[in-house]
Structure formats: structure tokens, C-alpha cells
């Protein structure tokens, strides 16, 4: 294998593919490497931990086709460090030689035939509106669980809903639901569970104007954005029946300016330490936020709001509440409640394509 390319483009490609490379390779040492395939002037770089695979195409000045696996982190560090300009790479069966400016590096390569065969993306391709999808990911993925002991909840449900696509995630303390009406990506009644980690990686590479293509296989999904391909294993299993959790009617409804609430929560939560909750006292015309941490101090702030219902105090984990307010977006939002123990609903006024359901903290 032999090619030349610009250092900057090579660095970006190695960085992207490297994001799927797990630290020390785990059970398969070869997975600590980045897989390079050169055909003509096209270099494809691939990193994988078997659950997530990121593959990047880069146009180079190819001289000799070939396949190689380089230690991912070291290769990325070298290419980041060398002088800007042209980089030349030559790989034989034992070593890779990289020269840039007056620097010369020789690296032992990892035997390429040990790199696992990765699933071929399905031929069925559907286009997704990248701007909308990226926005939906921003809203939904934070609610997915990071707790590997409940694998189902580490995924984001993508399901056909009416004539569109719905994304759902929950860590069992809050639930995020976003509808993308008119986005006919899945067949009706079809749903898949995509690891949120993979979607977060996708969101990193997704620009607003990019074309996004989804190829859905039986056990995996591939997202194509320009020269980048993100393939992810799908999570097997049934997502919880979240529909039954969303209360159909909420007697209490608070309407408040989102930025004002966001700022107040950010201030008051400074005194909600050591997992003490933030109390929201909802009354006519005003929302009071109170945080008290024993032996530390307390904070309170009033925010103008309109409230329809019976005066009520509900306590929330400040981080969960803040996250909900942030991702809901819009100028005005509503917080609907039943009582201090039932789930509360955050929505944006004038839009019903997103909801954030949040369980209170019980204080007794």
C-alpha cells in the first residue's frame, strides 16, 4: 500500500474512525487498530468495536493498492503531530512508514487478516432529513440510560408512528419522545432499538445540510453521511411500553418563559447538592424554586408564570429538570402535573412534536 494525502484530511479521517475503536482492543487486539483499504485513489479507514463501526472514505493520491491495520491511537497521534502539508504512507507486510516534512516514522502493523469481517450495509436505503434528525437526536439521546445493566434502556427506539418516525428514549427516570411527521423511514409497525452511543457518534458527524441515508439490516443499521458511514448493532429486546406512562390528562398546567426558567434553575440548583432535589412551588402567577442542602445553605427564586390548577409543590432532580428544559426548546414551555408523585410533562407551547416526561423526587 502506498499513498499520499494532506495531513489535515488524514487526521480528521483517523480521528473519526478512531472513535469506534475501543481503548485496548478488548478480546480482539486487532480491534485496537484502524483498518485501511486503498483502491485506486480511495482510502477507506474503519474502526470498530463490533457494536459500533465507523468508516470514512478519503480521496488520496494512491500509488499501490493494499490493506493494512495500524495501531489507531498511535497513528492518529503521529498524524496530528507532524508538520502540515503532504503525508506519504507506505505499508508492507511488517511495517508502515510515514513521512511528513522532515519526520520519518516506522510502525509495526497489526496483521490485517485478523480484522473481523464486518456486516455489509443493507441495500435498502432511505433518505432522512438530516437537520430534523440531528435536532431529534439532541432532544432524545440524553434521556437514554448509561447503565449497561439495563441494555434495553441504553437504546433509542426508532418506530413508525402514524405517517412519520418517532424517537423514544428513557432511563426510567425521564422519558423523551420526539415525532418526525412525514418521515417515512420505517415500514408501518416497524421499530428498531439503536444504541444511544452510536447515535451520539452519528450526531457528531452530522452537519445541518448533509444528506443522511439509513440502511436497515436485520441486526444492524447503517447511517451514511457524506464520506462517513456509521454502522451500529441493533439492541435485541422489547422496549418498555412507554405509551401507558404518558398521562392522558394533567389537571395542573404551568406556562413559563423557557429562558427565564432555565436561568433560575441554573442558579437555584447551586444549593441543591448531594442529590437533594429542587422544589417547584406552583401557584397562580408565579413559580417559586427552592433548594435546601442541609449544613450548606438554601436558595430560592420566583419566576413569572401562569398557572392553571391547584397550588402544588413538586420536587425534581435538578439535572433531569434542567436537561428537559434545555432540549424542549421554544420560547414558552408548559409543565403539566397531576400531583407530587406522578410524572410531570414538559412541552413546548405551540408544538406537540416533542415531550419530556419526568418523574418527581419523593420528599416525605
Amino acid at each position, binding site marked *: 500500500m502506498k499513498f499520499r494525502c494532506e495531513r489535515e484530511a488524514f487526521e480528521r479521517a483517523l480521528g473519526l474512525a478512531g472513535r469506534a475503536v475501543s481503548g485496548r482492543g478488548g478480546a480482539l487486539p486487532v480491534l485496537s487498530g484502524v483498518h485501511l483499504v486503498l483502491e485506486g485513489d480511495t482510502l477507506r479507514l474503519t474502526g470498530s468495536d463490533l457494536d459500533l463501526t465507523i468508516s470514512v472514505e478519503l480521496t488520496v493520491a494512491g500509488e499501490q493498492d493494499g490493506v493494512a491495520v495500524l495501531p489507531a491511537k498511535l497513528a492518529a497521534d503521529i498524524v496530528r503531530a507532524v508538520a502540515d502539508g503532504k503525508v506519504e504512507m507506505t505499508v508492507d507486510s511488517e511495517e508502515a512508514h510515514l513521512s511528513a516534512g522532515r519526520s520519518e516514522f516506522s510502525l509495526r502493523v497489526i496483521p490485517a487478516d485478523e480484522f473481523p469481517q464486518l456486516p455489509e450495509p443493507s441495500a435498502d436505503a432511505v433518505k432522512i432529513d438530516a437537520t430534523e434528525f440531528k435536532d431529534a437526536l439532541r432532544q432524545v439521546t440524553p434521556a437514554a*440510560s*448509561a*447503565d449497561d*445493566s439495563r441494555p434495553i434502556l441504553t437504546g433509542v427506539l426508532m418506530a413508525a408512528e402514524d405517517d412519520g418516525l418517532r424517537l423514544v428514549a*428513557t*432511563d*426510567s*427516570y425521564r*422519558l423523551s419522545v420526539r415525532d418526525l411527521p412525514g418521515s417515512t423511514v420505517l415500514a408501518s409497525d416497524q421499530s428498531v432499538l439503536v444504541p444511544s452511543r452510536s447515535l451520539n457518534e452519528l450526531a457528531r458527524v452530522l452537519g445541518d445540510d448533509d444528506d443522511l441515508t439509513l440502511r436497515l439490516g436485520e441486526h444492524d443499521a447503517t447511517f451514511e453521511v457524506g464520506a462517513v458511514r456509521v454502522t451500529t448493532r441493533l439492541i435485541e429486546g422489547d422496549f*418498555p*411500553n*412507554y405509551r*401507558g*406512562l404518558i398521562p392522558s390528562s394533567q389537571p395542573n398546567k404551568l406556562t413559563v418563559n423557557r429562558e427565564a426558567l432555565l436561568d433560575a434553575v441554573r442558579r437555584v440548583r447551586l444549593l441543591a447538592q448531594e*442529590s*437533594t*432535589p429542587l422544589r417547584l412551588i406552583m401557584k397562580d402567577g408565579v413559580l417559586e424554586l427552592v433548594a435546601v442542602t442541609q449544613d450548606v445553605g438554601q436558595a430560592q427564586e420566583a419566576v413569572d408564570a401562569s398557572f392553571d390548577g391547584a397550588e402544588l409543590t413538586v*420536587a425534581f*432532580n435538578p439535572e433531569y429538570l434542567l436537561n428537559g428544559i434545555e432540549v424542549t426548546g421554544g420560547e414558552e414551555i408548559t409543565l403539566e402535573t397531576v400531583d407530587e*408523585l406522578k*410524572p410531570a410533562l414538559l412541552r413546548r407551547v405551540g408544538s406537540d412534536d416533542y415531550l419530556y*416526561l419526568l*418523574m*418527581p*423526587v*419523593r*420528599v*416525605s
Partner: protein
Amino acid sequence: MADSSGPPATADRPDRLRILHVDMDAFYASVELLRHPELRGQPVVVGGSAERGVVAAASYEARSFGIHSAMPSVRAKRLCPHAVFLSGDHAHYAEVSGRLMEILRSYTPLVEPLSLDEAFLDVDGARRVYGEPPRIARLIRRQIYEQEGLTCSVGVASIKFLAKLATDQAKPKASPAGPVFGSGISVVAPGGELEYLHPLPVRSLWGVGPKTLAKLERLGVLTIGDLARLPQATVISALGEGQGRHLWLLANAIDEREVEPDQAPKSISHEETFATDRHDRAGLDVELVRMADAVSSRLRRHQLAGRTVQLKVRFHDFHTITRSVSAREPVDTGPAILRAARQLFDQIDPAPGVRLLGVGVSGLVDGAVRQLSLDDLMEQDWTQATSTIDDIRSRFGEAAIGPASLAASGELKLRRLGDQQWGPDRPSTPAEPIDGE
């Protein structure tokens, strides 16, 4: 206390039994006898046997020769030349003590250890589950004997200091003819506190040393009753504000000191040794359901929740493994604990034979403030259900309600808390007499 002229009205005294004082019998010596069964029946002295050593503990046989703790070992040897002297092993005693305190904490979180072998318990909140305090005292004595092979004496009273006094009366006694077993449990009946207390010599009062005794004798005080009948002001002027008031109140059976647990429990767990090794996953799963339910019930009773769920498995060959998993938010419901325990158990092969299974929750936090979970809703309004369960249990006992998978025909096989926690029931009664009902 504004009135200082005479004894206050009885209404000021707590009127029901709630305090247990548990004191191990000849603790160090008894622990040594477990390791040296060949010495049973012989006078055994634990302590420094060197020139300046002192006796740390003496078996009741040794006490029959007049040996007692804090006596110079040289003198003990003169009193009983054939006594067996053992050097102490504090680390071992502390380990046994830790297990004893765990037993006590399984009845109530309100355990105040006074030393390695002595503790106060406030069992007021435990009576609904375990019965009246004298019954709890019996359960504790039996469990300590069955699990550790050690005996203890228990004083039961409405206040701390009376419970401690009562323990002495329950103790085994040394006599020239050898040890005489005590009653094991001594109860000061509510309402009978003064009757019990007043005939006792004033030196029995906690905090009365030789100097104080001399001062009191100058006032003509010989019994506790004498002291109680003096005006409080007289006692205070003789003994000073602090001690005078304190002793006068004690003499009137007023002791407002609460049992102060020196540490919050670090974990709550239930484990069970099976009578025969178990190989079937399904059967063991039923045990998991039972244990998760028991642990959750105890967590909620103590108003605690925990982040980490542990599973303990001891195999037929005593090889023991523990596995744990931590959740982001603390849990206190049966289903949540069960879910974690099952997840851990799924990774274990019971085929070689499981001798012991245990489920525990650690990383405990205040359970009163808890992030609610959607699981609570999905598990059929489990939040409401658990409070109903807790209500039912507190009214009708632990076995009144339990998970459906534990239901056998006609009864719930719900293990009463504490039963079988440390091993299968013994087929025969223990050799050591435990006090009668």
C-alpha cells in the same frame, strides 16, 4: 424540671417496655472456649499471664474461685493455680462482635454498642414485627446461641439504665459449687420501676463510685429509694449540679437518654443456608423473589434506599462468590432489587449445587427522599403497592402478604425476618437451656 421538692408524677416516665440491654456472658472466655472446646468445664482466664498482666475475662468456672476481670493475673493464679491462662485475641473478638452487632441490627437499626460485648437496643419500632420486647429478647438470645454458640443476658425495661441494671439479675452467677445459670432475661415491668429500683443499694446506680457513695452515706442514703426521697436541691448541693441532678433523676427512674446508634447500617441483606444443596435455577429464583422482598421491606422500614445490590452465592464446596451491580438511583422496592439480583444470578451457574444464597443492598441513603422511577409505574403502581404492603405487614405481620410466586397452597412461605438467616433450623433443641416462654 421546675419541681425540686419531691418525686415527679409517674406520667413523666415512659410507661412501656422498649429498651433491651444485651450483654454477652463472659464474652472473651466464651469465645475462646469455642476455639478450645477441650477446655469446657475448666476455669479459663483470658488476659496477660505475664508478671504484670491483668485478667480481661474469666469463665464462670474461674469466677467460682473468686477470679474477676481487672484482677492482676498473678493474684488469679494464686486463687486458682490450675486455671488455664489464654492470651487475648482482640482481632478475633472484634470479628465475633461485629457479627453479634449485625444480629442485633437485624431487629432494629437503633443499636448502641457500649463495648464489644454489650449494647443497648430500642425495640419500640420492632414490636409489630417481632412481638413484645421480652419476646424479642428471647429471639435474640436464641439466634445468638444458634449462630455463634454464645450465650448472653438481656435486661428489658422502659429506660436504658433500668435495662442495664436488670441484666445483672439475669446473669449466670459463680458459686463455690460452680456456675449457676441465670434466668437469661430479666424484665422490669412498666409501672413497677420504682418498686424494683428503690430497695437496691445506691451504689448500683450508674455513675456512683466510692467518692460519691461516701457523700451519699453522709446524707444517710443507703438505698436508691433513700436518694429518690431526698429533695432534688439537697442532692444537687451535695453532689453538684450535673451529677446531683442526674443521679436523682435516675433514682426516680427517669432516664431520658435515647439509644444512639453509633453508625448507620452500611448494608441490609438477607441470606439463607439451605438444608440441602440446591441446583435448580427456577427454585433458586423463588428464593431470590423472597429475599428481594424481605430486603426491600426492611429497607423501607428503616426508611433507607441503596444504590448497590449484591448477590452472594456459596457453593457446595464452600466456595463463595459475591457479585454486585450499582444503579444510578437508589432502590427500595422488591421488584427493583429483584431485577438487579436476577441479572447477577443469570451469570452464575447453580449446577454444582448452591448451599447459601443471599441478597443485599448497600450504598444506603435516606430513603425518604427518592427519585421516583417509571418502573414504579410500570410495575403496577408499585409505589402505592409497597406502602400498602408495609401497612398490612405492620398490622398483620410479615407473612400476611408477599409476592405471588411465594404462595403455596393455603399459606405464604414467607420467611419471617430473622428465621433461617444463618442456617437451616436445627432439628433438636440446643443443649444450652434457653429461658422458657
